[in-house]
């Protein structure tokens, strides 16, 4: 005898279609390109003059804008590296059995995690001297260096939480097994706990990196010559033509999208992969 039911749990399992890695097709590019061109030409037609078309102007500036974008990436990579190293130490501090250590690491983490990135950047910009002298040796602190320091602060706090969360997410049995085999705390951490945490930390860490990359444009506010600053300068060099705004800023948007979107997709890919293995 068979029962008829439409309970979802009784339905045959639908095979899941594997997704293409980028989930993007050429079709997605059409509306974006169309929008840019229409906006540009509408504005151009309205302006009714004989100067170069907006896209031609943009083409002239692209090499410089790309240079600026590479500078953004350099800032993001450096701030990420610095923030990760310091943040990892802070995260380990948070799980330290020494109370003073854990509570102070916790406080520093919470303080910087709950601060606006722009405010931290301003602090780094205007509170750090333009140079320091150590033993008579003058080390200059250029703006870009201060921007890296400023942006690495929130990264540090977030990495600290990622480390703490990953360590806490492991079953306590792993600690107990290692302890009952007479491992010291350090050995337990380095040989048993942290190697298992790396996989868990990778997706949120990459997520953080993409957020940081997008936040590097904040440095334009404090005068670092990154892509947004250069775009602004290019626009004013072209006499502030309003029809240039859409193609120029649209180009910058596309640059960030082209860089960050694959990272986001790769993160999803890793999350799926690690979800199966654990």
């Amino acid at each position: 005898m068979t029962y008829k039911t439409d309970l979802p749990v009784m339905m045959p399992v639908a095979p899941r279609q594997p997704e293409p890695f980028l989930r993007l097709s050429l079709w997605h590019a059409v509306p974006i390109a169309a929008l840019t061109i229409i906006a540009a030409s509408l504005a151009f037609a309205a302006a009714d003059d004989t100067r170069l078309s907006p896209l031609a102007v943009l083409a002239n500036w692209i090499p410089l804008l790309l240079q600026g974008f590479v500078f953004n990436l350099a800032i993001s990579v450096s701030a990420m590296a610095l923030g990760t190293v310091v943040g990892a130490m802070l995260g380990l501090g948070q799980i330290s059995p020494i109370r003073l250590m854990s509570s102070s690491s916790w406080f520093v983490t919470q303080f910087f995690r709950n601060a606006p990135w722009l405010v931290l950047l301003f602090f780094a910009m205007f509170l750090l001297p333009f140079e320091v002298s150590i033993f008579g040796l003058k080390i200059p602190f250029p703006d870009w260096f201060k921007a890296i320091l400023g942006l690495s602060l929130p990264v540090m706090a977030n990495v600290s939480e990622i480390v703490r969360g990953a360590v806490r997410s492991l079953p306590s049995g792993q600690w107990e097994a290692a302890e009952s085999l007479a491992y010291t705390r350090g050995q337990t951490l380095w040989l048993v706990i942290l190697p298992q945490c790396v996989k868990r930390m990778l997706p949120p860490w990459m997520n953080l990196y993409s957020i940081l990359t997008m936040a590097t444009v904040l440095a334009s506010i404090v005068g670092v010559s990154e892509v947004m600053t250069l775009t602004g300068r290019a626009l004013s060099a072209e006499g502030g033509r309003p029809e240039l705004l859409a193609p120029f800023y649209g180009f910058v948007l596309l640059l960030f999208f082209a860089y960050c979107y694959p990272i986001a997709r790769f993160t999803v890919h890793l999350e799926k992969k690690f979800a199966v293995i654990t």
Partner: protein
Amino acid sequence: MSWTPSDPMVSIRDVHKSFGALKVLNGVSLDVMKGDVICIIGPSGSGKSTLIRCVNALNDIQQGSILVEGQEVNDPNLDKLELRKKVGMVFQQYNLFPHKTALQNVMMAPVRVLKQDKAKAEGTARALLKKVRLEGKEDAFPGELSGGQQQRVAIARSLAMQPDVILFDEVTAALDPETVGEVLQTIKDLAEDGMTCILVTHEMGFAREVADHIYFTDRGVIVEHGPPKTFFDNAQDPRTKEFLSQIL
């Protein structure tokens, strides 16, 4: 006063332990001689697991004394590492290290903790895996092994430290019924080799077969104890009788 092998290997005296307001152990005493196999049985929440976790200082106790080869466990200056080299432990959830192969799981502690030569430790580890009948699974990761196989790796991992006594905390409770037998057989082999074992178990048939002595705990005290035959066939206390009637 120093410990000699004719003294109890583990001597538990009037141990009290509570988690907050919850009293888990209410004055437990028992002795385990070298080569003894003792089984602790009792209803859930009666403090069995807590008791053996106190023996290797995974849990601390509030009152009383636990001597392991004459070394006081209830001592703030206790060298936990030294204690744990003598006392092995096998868990209900196996707790193998999932990022290491079976062989690495077994040889890691001897190399890192006992500073054994790597080649020597590997030889011992392979022999131990063979002893627990897992030859050919050396390079398998825990996730690729069945529950019973993982638990046998965990037993080999504990043996590799050459402990004087091994604690088994409900080691078959999480296993599929068809793999319980292989793990119990492994423990039985150990018992026959003269390994001192303290087991918390729900496997009554097994307890009857391998134990030298059975302890029945309820609400944090030992209600009754004795050799298996007397215990199972001639229980005196009404609580023991009730428990046995429910379970047998």
